[in-house]
């Protein structure tokens, strides 16, 4: 504790002045990416809302925007922010031991380590707490067997956030443990999972006697679900539609080149995501180009789509306005994910009407170099990924409308007695 800690609280002006002075004294585009980010870790300016002892400055999160503005003003590169690594950092900061913080946080910020999230399984998608990947204690080590799926970037990841079952006599949510798993070991095999749109953004991960050292367990057996909730909360926070896509500066120079390469790798799995949302932005232009704008039936369908998309946008802005004014969240704040599915489906329908026979084609034979074809076969993901429409409706009806939950049949007995999917042995 130093004397300065007891001085006046930081203000936007004081934070801006401080970060500006530091950047002017230290920023140099000739640094290597990791070399520069180590300086950011030492100074705390890479993650100013993190604790002082862990590479931050203990600043309220509201000042991050000011710091970001100053980085942008001078053109300085920030810490690695894209990908699952941010979820790992949030989870470790909230629940990890000092050893975890020491070993992982800095290398997350420098971008040296990449991470993946090992939650979903073939037998448990919406019912994530029904995971059956086994964690068995042998000697003092944990031995992992089972299979995970929908794992973005697992083929590149150094570390995985693993949810596995360690106690089969406990009820569903109480038998789970949460581990940090070394992905680069013989017991871990990663296979790409090809999707119906031809991309392979995700992986299947197989564990055959994979080893976790005892100190890489993040909480006691039984608390795994609580920790997983932290990770998921940060994932959903990032999926509220307000985030900006990671974009790299186009400036020349070594550090910018290294950052561009990093972002290209991290964002590669997400390149079809705009098509997944239906590309409403292309509809009017395409309807005019094809002349279908003059077809009264198509006009009705286009109008339905645009009305839905506009109303959805205004509903999200109502939610944001209420949040900014500190009002309690109204029902309008819980609808975005479900509405986005409705919009995407109608958009795919409209793109089909507009495109006509050309919608039979794919790739370079199809309109806009394959973009339209990609919309048509990507939209089905929208209503599944990140919580299916059905789960969203349950959340809305139970949390917003206060309707009763369905009677539970799997939470009142040892998990080993709960009927579950049989996963074929590999």
């Amino acid at each position, binding site marked *: 504790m130093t004397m300065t800690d007891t001085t006046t609280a930081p203000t936007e002006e004081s934070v801006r002045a401080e970060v500006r002075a530091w950047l002017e004294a230290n920023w140099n585009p000739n640094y290597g990416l990791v070399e520069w980010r180590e300086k950011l870790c030492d100074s705390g300016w890479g993650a100013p809302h993190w604790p002082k002892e862990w590479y931050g400055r203990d600043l309220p999160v509201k000042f991050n925007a000011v710091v970001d503005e100053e980085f942008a003003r001078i053109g300085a590169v920030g810490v690695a922010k894209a990908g699952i690594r941010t979820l790992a950092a949030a989870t470790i900061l909230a629940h990890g031991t000092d050893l975890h913080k020491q070993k992982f946080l800095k290398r997350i910020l420098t971008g040296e380590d990449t991470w993946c999230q090992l939650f979903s399984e073939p037998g448990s998608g919406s019912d994530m707490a029904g995971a059956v990947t086994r964690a068995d204690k042998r000697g003092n080590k944990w031995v992992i067997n089972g299979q995970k799926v929908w794992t973005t970037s697992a083929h590149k990841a150094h570390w995985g956030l693993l949810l596995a079952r360690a106690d089969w006599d406990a009820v569903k949510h109480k038998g789970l443990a949460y581990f940090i798993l070394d992905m680069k070991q013989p017991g871990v095999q990663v296979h790409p999972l090809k999707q119906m749109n031809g991309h392979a953004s995700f992986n299947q991960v197989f564990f055959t006697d994979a080893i976790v050292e005892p100190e890489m367990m993040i909480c006691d057996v039984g608390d795994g679900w609580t920790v997983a909730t932290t990770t998921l909360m940060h994932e959903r926070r990032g999926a509220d539609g307000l985030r900006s896509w990671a974009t790299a500066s186009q400036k020349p120079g070594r550090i910018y080149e290294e950052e561009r390469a990093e972002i290209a790798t991290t964002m590669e799995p997400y390149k079809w995501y705009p098509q997944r949302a239906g590309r409403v932005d292309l509809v*009017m232009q395409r309807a005019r180009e094809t002349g279908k704008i003059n077809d009264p039936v198509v006009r009705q369908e*286009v*109008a339905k789509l645009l009305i839905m998309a506009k109303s*959805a946008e205004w509903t999200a802005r*109502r939610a944001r306005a209420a949040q900014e004014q500190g009002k309690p969240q109204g029902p*309008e704040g819980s609808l975005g994910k*479900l509405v986005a599915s409705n919009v995407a489906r109608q958009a795919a329908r409209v793109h089909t009407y507009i495109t006509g026979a050309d919608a039979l084609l794919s790739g370079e034979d199809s309109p806009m170099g394959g973009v339209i074809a990609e919309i048509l076969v990507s939209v089905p993901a929208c209503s599944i990924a990140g919580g299916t429409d059905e789960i969203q409706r349950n959340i809305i009806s139970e949390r917003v409308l206060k*309707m009763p939950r369905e*009677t539970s049949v799997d939470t009142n007995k040892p998990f080993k007695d709960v009927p579950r999917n049989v996963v074929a042995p590999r």
Partner: protein
Amino acid sequence: MRFSFSAEQEEFRGTLRRALEARSPTKEVRRLMATDEGFDRDGWKRLNQELGLTGLLIPEAYGGQGFGFGELGIVLEEMGRSLLCAPFLSTTLAAIAILNAGSEEQKKALLPALADGTKTATLAFQEGNGSIDAAGIAMTATANKLDGTKSFVLDGHTADLIVVVARKKGTTGSDGLSFFTVAGDAPGLTRRKLKTMDETRKLAQLTFKSVEAQPLGIDGAGGPAFAKTLQQAIVCLANEMVGGAERLREDALEYVKMRMQFGRSIASFQTTKNKAADMLVDVELAKSAAYYAAAALDEGDKDMPALASLAKAQAAEAYLQTAIHAVQMHGGIGFTWDNDTHLWFKRAKSSEILFGDANEHREKMMQAWGQQAAE
């Protein structure tokens, strides 16, 4: 402004809601809808004067309070919620037409009586063909004498003052349109109350035989004022509609939570929960569009023709769909006369059609956006 209400506006809404809950329970709605007039003159006069309702939008210079469509939208939404039986929408539309078409002297002469509630009024523009377009207006005005028939006129059989849209002989489309005012008891005017599916919304057919009328504004140049009046009218209606839709949604939700079948609340069945979630989506999106359009009117948004039609189309689909689900969620009781659901179901149906249905407004929106792109 387009995305939230101020604390004062929320407080106004609360006061209004409490007043309407007290004055317009469904028992009272049922009593009034069975009368020929469709409202209680003395009761409405008192409520209107206490809360300053018809004067809300009218500028202070003409005896009103000079608020905007944002505040008016709140009033309409609450009235749609309570199904208040009163000539509010009709009088408001007449006031809007006078504001858009009338001269300064005419506004000073006509509006104070509407603002203070001593007179009710309506706007007569549609005819037997039901068209909401200028082209559908066939009634002629020759030397300020009106001949022809107006139909689907809101509260037309009871209004003290009628604002009429007619055209010069030999003109078409929006050319040659003029606004006129006619007293409800003018010689040569025959008023017939129409039997309506939605008994809470009274409509009349008005037959004019050489009726002496007072011109409103510049003779033959009423086209733009008519277009503007229609946009404002449908935004008003859309705001009224979302109030009714929300009330239906809430009542249906309350019912399924209470209703037991198979030994459990039917609100615990996923099929019911899914429906309730979808209803919330429909109603909230329609509210967003209606609020946005009302605020856009106050801000003089150039995109107004499209935004007004968007709000009406969205409200029409949402209100009717909510009504269909609400009857279904009530089951057999929901199809009975004694259950209140049908009161709003019929209001949903009548509002869907009044001033143009969803198909028509989607087309109008596309035309408005098409013109913009061509500019």
